[in-house]
């Protein structure tokens, strides 16, 4: 505990008959649906009063003011007067689904895939849908220099992790690489004991990966000349070639600069995570051209290196044009309060527009998914949420969450309301208090 590793909800393994928190079957509608009359935040453009959103086949086919959108004749029309529609929320840093990465045997384990550990039936996924999340970057913890590969999930209904996983253009599963510096990854041997050693270990490993990359290039496709496969080095080569983004946990100003130095040396793509001291080195962050995935906490501290974390981070980064997302780090901040995290940035001086972007399109950009999601535009995935008020108001509730054109959360369904508000079983990984053999 005092090592300050993230806390994961304990897995409950005692229940023989597992109750699936299954949503109603919500197949992708054969015919289009038109959501009319809502105040629409497309995020990619100005707010639309009395807007219309048309979705079909899991994609958005039209969005705009009522007068400018032709509703297809066969569309099911859903009256959303008095409601707000905005893109499904994108969380760039989450630990839902009881994930794990590397173990305690070594500080550098890029070969560990979080995808092999995720329990997609864990209630944390249902609770995230209740918070309006449709896309998440699920990360292993921050107790390693390199703790493993992250995975980007769409929170659609599905029976396997593969059905939820987002894919790159080449068909591989989309995700990044989790790294960390500062005190979380400083531990007893074989972990580093100092910051200097931490950076040295990482540099040495990337140099190895460069050698490995050179050997592969030198083989020029000749299988007999290829080096033995090394899952860890393969992953780092993806990073060196810009095919895998580094998601780097970092808090203190000097640790942030260490990340930027490594990025400069090895030329990888990088997103800074948490970035407690961002306001102190915002100029350097902007100059490095990296994006930030920040967190807003109700009080600062918890450890020395986070003593100066500040709600102004979003505003200071916005001033300098840094792409800035905010994240839940669920269970650090519950996914159901995700919009509240954006509101805390506004409390700290960020503009409303950028704050709303920070939980949608900015997150999509940092995950390289902005062509597909993060805003309401024709051609993008039909990921959106229906709210009963302003997205940044404390009193607003998420009423519905739609992913790929299918409803995955509806506050009027009792089983969904339970996940949204809490109650018997809602905080467990499964509903542990119901019997038996079915739901």
């Amino acid at each position, binding site marked *: *505990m*005092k090592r300050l590793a993230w806390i994961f909800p304990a897995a409950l393994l005692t229940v023989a008959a597992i109750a699936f928190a299954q949503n109603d079957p919500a197949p992708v509608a054969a015919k289009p649906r038109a959501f009319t009359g809502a105040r629409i935040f497309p995020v990619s453009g100005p707010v639309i009063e009395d807007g219309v959103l048309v979705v079909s086949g899991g994609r958005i086919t039209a969005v705009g003011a009522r007068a400018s959108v032709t509703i297809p004749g066969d569309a099911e029309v859903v009256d959303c007067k008095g409601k707000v529609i905005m893109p499904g929320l994108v969380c760039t840093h989450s630990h839902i689904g009881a994930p794990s990465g590397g173990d305690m045997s070594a500080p550098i384990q890029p070969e560990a895939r979080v995808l092999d550990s995720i329990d997609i039936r864990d209630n944390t996924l249902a609770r995230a849908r209740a918070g309006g999340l449709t896309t998440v970057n699920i990360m292993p913890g921050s107790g390693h220099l390199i703790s493993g590969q992250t995975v980007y999930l769409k929170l659609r209904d599905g029976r396997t992790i593969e059905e939820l996983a987002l894919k790159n253009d080449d068909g591989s599963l989309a995700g990044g690489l989790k790294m960390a510096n500062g005190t979380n990854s400083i531990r007893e041997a074989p972990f580093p004991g100092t910051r200097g050693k931490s950076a040295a270990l990482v540099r040495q490993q990337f140099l190895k990966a460069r050698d490995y990359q050179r050997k592969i290039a030198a083989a020029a496709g000749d299988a007999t000349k290829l080096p033995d496969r090394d899952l860890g080095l393969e992953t780092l080569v993806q990073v060196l070639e810009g095919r895998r983004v580094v998601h780097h946990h970092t808090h203190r100003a000097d640790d942030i600069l260490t990340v930027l130095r490594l990025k400069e040396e090895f030329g990888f793509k990088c997103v800074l995570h948490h970035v407690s001291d961002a306001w102190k080195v915002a100029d350097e962050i902007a100059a490095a051209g990296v994006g930030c995935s920040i967190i807003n*906490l109700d*009080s600062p*501290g918890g450890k020395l290196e986070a003593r100066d974390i500040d709600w102004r981070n979003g505003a200071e980064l916005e001033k300098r044009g840094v792409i800035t997302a905010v994240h839940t780090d669920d269970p650090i901040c*519950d996914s159901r309060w995700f919009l509240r995290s954006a*509101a805390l940035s506004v409390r700290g001086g960020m503009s409303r527009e950028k704050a709303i972007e920070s939980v949608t399109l900015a997150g999509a950009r940092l995950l390289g998914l902005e062509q597909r999601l993060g805003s309401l535009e024709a051609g993008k995935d039909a990921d959106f949420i229906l709210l009963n008020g302003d997205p940044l108001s404390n*009193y607003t509730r998420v009423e519905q969450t739609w992913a790929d054109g299918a409803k995955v959360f509806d506050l009027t369904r009792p089983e969904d309301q339970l996940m949204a508000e809490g*109650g018997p079983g809602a905080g467990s990984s499964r509903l542990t208090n119901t019997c038996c053999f079915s739901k």
Partner: protein
Amino acid sequence: MTRALIFLLFASAAQAQLAIKAKTLYPMTGDLAPWQDAVVLCGPDGKIQRVGPAAETPVPDGWKVVEAEVAMPGIIDARTAVGLTGLLNWEQRDQEQFENSAPVQPELRAVDAYNGRDPLVQWVRELGVTTMHTGHAAGELVSGQTMILKTNIVSITKPEDVLNAFAGVAVTLGSEGFAKGGKAPGTRAKSVAMLRAELIKAREYQDKLERAEADKKPDRDLHLEALGAVLKKEAPLIITADRHQDIAAALRLQTEFGFKLVLDSAAEAYQLLEPIKAAGIPVLVHPLMARPAGDREHLTFTLPAKLHAAGIPFAFQSGYEAYVPKTRVVLFEAGMAAAHGLAKEQALAALSIRPAEILGLAARLGSLAAGKDADLALYDGDPLETTTHCTGVIIDGKVVSQERR
């Protein structure tokens, strides 16, 4: 001449009396309805002189005027460990919220552990918290005592620095109170058995004290004295109980020993509304944003609305959790309740007059009325909106913060 002028300036600064002008004022009196365009006059004694509509309440010449969109009574955090637990979460430096050398230590006083200079105290003060019921946290079967003080007190040097030096004894039923490493208590039944044994011992000690001749009194025992004070109803037992069976155990103990009971956290109180109501027990509701894990896994954000509907008195607390955020902010917890079925005025009441009533301080704190302590929190909008800022904090008629938080 010059000297006289300086003296006059100094004298007027020292005695500068304070008027708060608010566009919306929540006096938290009567029907809890807000007033529009109201003035609070704070006298030189730190008490409220008068509260009234701006049109009928002229501000005397020379008074300092602070304006605010919204003003309400200074917030009372009904249960926290802030000042014992500190911002850095650093063992042996700022973590004094429980002592794990023994499971039952009612003799531990909060006044001896409190650090009013910890930045966490400043943090909650600048968000509008003016009074805290703080002390030993849930985490041991009997973790120690609690106290009540204002958030402008940085060092406790005289009795009047605290409002109540012995506000209760903190008990934890359920898994949070289990000892580590195979030590007792390790189960619920053992926890209750140990607690009953301690209370019986304390009762016997009390009986001996009362019956014995003056020269045959038993030796003083701080441990049994503290529990004896609870049995004499000088301070409540504050029992942290989240699971319904732990809440039921707390009610059972109260029936057996007749102490004053305050239920703390009480995540599953929604399962036992009728017996809690029948026993007349107040509830200090867990932070709604506390992680739904461990004994709190069945918590619901609708608990405050359900307690209100059932007529059970309750107040909000920031509580204690081991990890970040190092403290919840009671103001934000009230906001979460208001987003889940509790009327806004009731949510504000559970930050002010309700905790004052539960903690026995309603004659001094919790509402804005003549004669009460001039403690106020000022905001630039609805205090419960996340995007609103706290713009000023007043304790005993003195501005203690004008930060925009």
